[in-house]
Every structure is written in C-alpha cells, then in structure tokens.
C-alpha cells in the first residue's frame, strides 16, 4: 500500500517535471517572441528587456532558473501584466476555476445518479431509451455549442439567468450546466451499465430470493457495488473538467485561469503560459492521486497488491 502510494507520488513528480520542461523547450524553439511588435522596438530597448528577464543568458541557465523557481513556488514574472507575477495571477484566478469545476462535478454527480438508477431500473423500456438518447446527445455536443445554446435560450430569450458575469448564484447556473453536461451524460451511461452488471451477480439473486424489496436490492446491493467503476473514471473526468473549463470560461467571460491562458497564448506571455499549464497539470495529477487513494481504500483487492 505504502509502496503503491510512493510509486504514484513519484509518477506525479515526473509528470510535473516533464510538463515544465516540455512547455519551456516548446516555447523556447517557437519562432517569434513576446516582444515582437508591428513597429520594431529599438535594439537598446530589446537588450534591456532581454536583460531584465534573463533572456540574454544561455538556455540552460534560463532552464535551471525556471526549475529552481518552481521548486521555491515562484512561477516567474508576467510579460504582459507588469505589476503582477504569474503566482499572483494564479492565486487570483485558480479559486474561480476551481469553484466552477467543483460546481460542475457536483452537478454531474447529482444528475447522473438518479438518471443511471432510473435507466437501469426500467432497463430497455422507453424511459431507459430516452435517458440513453439524451446521454448520447450530451456526450456529442461540443461545450461551446451547448454554452451558446443555453445563453441564447435562457439568457437572451427567456431572461432567467445572467451570462457573462461571475460572483453570484444566478450567473453560475449556466456555466455549471454547460461544463457539467458531458460528465453527467458519461456518468449516467457508466452507472447504468455498472448497475446492470451488478444486478446479474449471484449475491443480488440471493438478496431477491431472500424476499428483499426491489428498491432495497437496487440501492443497497446494486448501487453500492457500482461505485468502484465510477471511482475509476473520476480521474479522466477531472481532466475533462479542467480542459472544458477554459472553453466555458471563454464563452461565459468568467475571470478564471483558463481565460488568462487563452489571452496569454495570444499575447505570447510565455511565463504565464508555462505557469498556468503547470498548475493545470498539478490539478490533474493531484486528482489522479486522490482517486488512487480512494480506490485502494474502497477496493481491498488493490490494497493487497
């Protein structure tokens, strides 16, 4: 168990190092730079800028400086926002993105459990087929189209919810639904088939033979044993929420990390790009570690290894 966790932790560190290096070298060899302007800056100014950000040093110096900075929790300066460094920007925007992600995760869990249960309970009926159909739609509709559709319908036409703001419950409804729709659909699918699998097991037959009510069998025996498959996809699901969040933040003009990433790419604000990518990776890796932990906790067979 401890060995397993140490192995996962090492893996996480390697992933972070790879991402830090990959972003560093990719941006290093990308032609053009953050200080290219339509009107060329005078060479003296460029030299000053390069000296300020240590861009005149050989790449290995820059690389080691960057890595030591990360270890010390310093993500470097922002080329665009002169009064803030990358860490400040992340500290401001991460809570916004994180709360959006947590809302969406909660939304998808709250929606998928009833849908998965109902679909499994009424398997192969029209109710079931309808649920599956909606789930397939939910998986196939791109986030930005769903977001635009929800804004058009609920904000522009009906005027129920506000879009393009952040900070209160009303304006959080549509982004949460947009980001949570695909995970909700996916989880419903998964729960339905996991419950159906469990319903075919011997212990379920025993429970029925004992004369237990169908609802007891469903909730107590089938549902609780269907949670492990759900747990295994929480890792990839978090990845989906993380990447989905910057599309949703763009569509709903939410001041989160993803929106800063998008503008950083357009502005070629390299340290900000690298910093945000690294923080996103850390979130992903952290979520996966958590899932590993929960998994080995809930499934004794893993713990034994």
């Amino acid at each position, binding site marked *: 168990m401890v060995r397993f966790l140490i192995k996962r932790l090492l*893996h*996480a560190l*390697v*992933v972070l190092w*790879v*991402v830090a290096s*990959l*972003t560093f070298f*990719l*941006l290093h*060899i*990308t*032609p053009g730079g953050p200080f290219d302007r339509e009107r060329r800056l005078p060479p003296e100014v460029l030299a000053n800028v390069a000296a300020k950000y240590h861009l005149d040093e050989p790449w290995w110096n820059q690389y080691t400086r960057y890595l030591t900075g990360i270890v010390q929790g310093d993500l470097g300066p922002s080329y665009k926002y002169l009064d803030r460094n990358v860490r400040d920007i992340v500290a401001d925007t991460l809570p916004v993105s994180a709360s959006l992600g947590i809302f969406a995760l909660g939304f998808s869990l709250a929606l998928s459990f009833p849908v998965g249960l109902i679909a499994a309970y009424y398997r*192969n009926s029209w109710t079931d087929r309808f649920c599956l159909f909606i789930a*397939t*739609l939910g*998986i*196939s*509709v*791109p*986030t*930005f*189209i769903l977001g*635009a*559709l929800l*804004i*058009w319908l609920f904000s*522009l036409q009906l005027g129920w919810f506000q879009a393009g703001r952040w900070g209160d419950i009303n304006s959080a409804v549509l982004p949460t639904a947009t980001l949570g729709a695909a995970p909700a659909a996916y989880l419903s699918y998964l729960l339905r088939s996991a419950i159906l699998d469990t319903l075919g097991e011997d212990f379920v037959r025993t429970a029925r033979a004992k004369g237990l009510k169908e609802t007891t069998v469903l909730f107590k025996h089938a549902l609780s044993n269907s949670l492990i498959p759900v747990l295994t996809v929480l890792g990839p699901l978090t*990845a989906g929420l*993380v*990447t989905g969040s*910057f*599309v949703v933040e*763009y*569509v709903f003009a939410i001041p989160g990390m993803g929106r800063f*990433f*998008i503008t950083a*790419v*357009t502005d070629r604000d390299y340290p900000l*790009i690298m910093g945000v*990518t690294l923080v*996103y*990776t850390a979130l*992903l*890796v952290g979520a*996966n570690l958590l899932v590993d932990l929960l998994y080995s906790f809930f499934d004794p067979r893993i713990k034994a290894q």
Partner: protein
Amino acid sequence: MSRQNEAEEQRRQRGQRALLLLSLAFIAAVTLCGFLAPLLSPYSPAGLQEGRILEGPSWSHWLGTDGLGRDLFTRILYGARVSLTVGIGTALIALIIGSLYGLISGYSGGPLDSLLMRIVDVVYSLPDLLIFILLSLLLGRNIAGVLLALGLVSWVRFARIARGQVLQAKEFVYVEGARAIGASHLRIIMRHILPNIAGPILVTLTFSIPAAILAESTLSFIGLGINDPYSEWGTSWGTLAQDGWRAMRTYPHIILFPGLAIFFTILSFNYLGNGLRDILDPKGK
C-alpha cells in the same frame, strides 16, 4: 433468456443497425459535400457581396449570409473539408505512431516494454489540450500544423490498446507454432499478430476522429486553432461558429448552422464507433 427478452434484444439490435446506417449515410454525405463543394454551390466561400449582409435563410442563400455577405451554406460545405481532413488525418497519424509503439513494446517485452510503457503513462497524464495548443504555436496554425500537433498528443491510446492486444496474441498457439517453424519476427507480426489486433484498433480509430474534430473546432472557436484566413481550402467550422458567436444576439442563424454541422458530424462518428465496437470488439463494451 426469456422469449420476451429475445424479442426486445432483436428490436434493440435492429434499432442500432438503423442508427449505424444513418450515421454512415451522414458521414458519406458530409464527405461528398467536402469533395464536391465547388460543384454544389454557385458561390465562392470568399465571395463578398455588398448589400447582402447578415441575411436570414432564403431560396438564394439557403442558410443565410454572414457579416461580410458570404453565403453560409457554401462556407459550411468548404468547412467540411477542414474538419474531415483534421479528423481523419489526426486519427491516422495517431494510429501509425501509437500502433508501432505499442507493437514494439508488446512484442519485445522485458525491460524495453516497461520503459516504453512508463513513458506512455507519463504522456497519458499530460493535459493534452494545452500541450496541443503549445505544439500548434510551434508547428504553425494551419491545417497541417494542427493535424500534426493533434496527432502527436493523441497517439497514446493506440499504443496502449495495440500493446494489450499484442500481449494477448503473442500467447496464441498458432503464433507459437509460427515461431517454432522458424518464421521471422517481421513475418509473425505482419501475418499473425496484426490481423488479430485490427478490430480494436479500428474501433479506436473511429472514436479518435470525432475527438480530433471536436478539439480542432473548439480551439478554432476560442481563437487558438487554425488561423489561416486566406486558405483556399476552407474555413474551420469552429471559426464559422466564432463569427456567429459575436453576432448571436441579433443573428443566431450564423452560429446555429456551423454548430449543427459540428454536432451531427461528431454524433455520427460516435454512433459509427459504437456500431463497429459491437461488431468487431464485443468484449470492449
């Protein structure tokens, strides 16, 4: 299984087959639209028309016109080329890199296999969409660059599946037999292993096409994807949707039609993948 369940099962299978055919038909139609775009429409995708700006659907412009008076139907036809090229091209690049990698890893076994798989584990944990954005900055924000960048981040899935299949196939008696009569490694791989792993790989291929189309159109929508306004080839559906997004309050049709095109294309490929999986890889359900 009771008789009623059997009837139910048959009905379900019939329904699935109908959906599969419908999706195939739609994909074929989109492909044809892409190929025959210049024949199907009297307009040029870049043909500006003064005085015919932001029109709704009509007989002369089936899906209306955009903010520069360009015919939206024509632009969507040409856009099909971009989406399909990116989708299929990416899937093929990922297929080639990933299958070769998985094949080598699984067939060689031993320390090389564990090293290669350790690398796959790491690549699998990367935030692929972000890495893709950075790669496309380097490779250029045109179709070729985007295609290559997407292929480079999405090969891992193929590597894992190919390796798993090879590990299974290696244990089959006829592979052992082939080795016993002195067949070369290349011959064993080409003749005995590859045909056996083709099914699951084909299913993965089908699912990675819509994933690539989704990634490309999403990034073009947020302005980080293909940025090649003078391309003769066509404009990405994601970029078309972005044009419509800015005018959505007053002219919702400009975002609606590209959005529908993206949605139905992705949906069809997903249904096609489901159908193929039922046929080729019943265990993978």
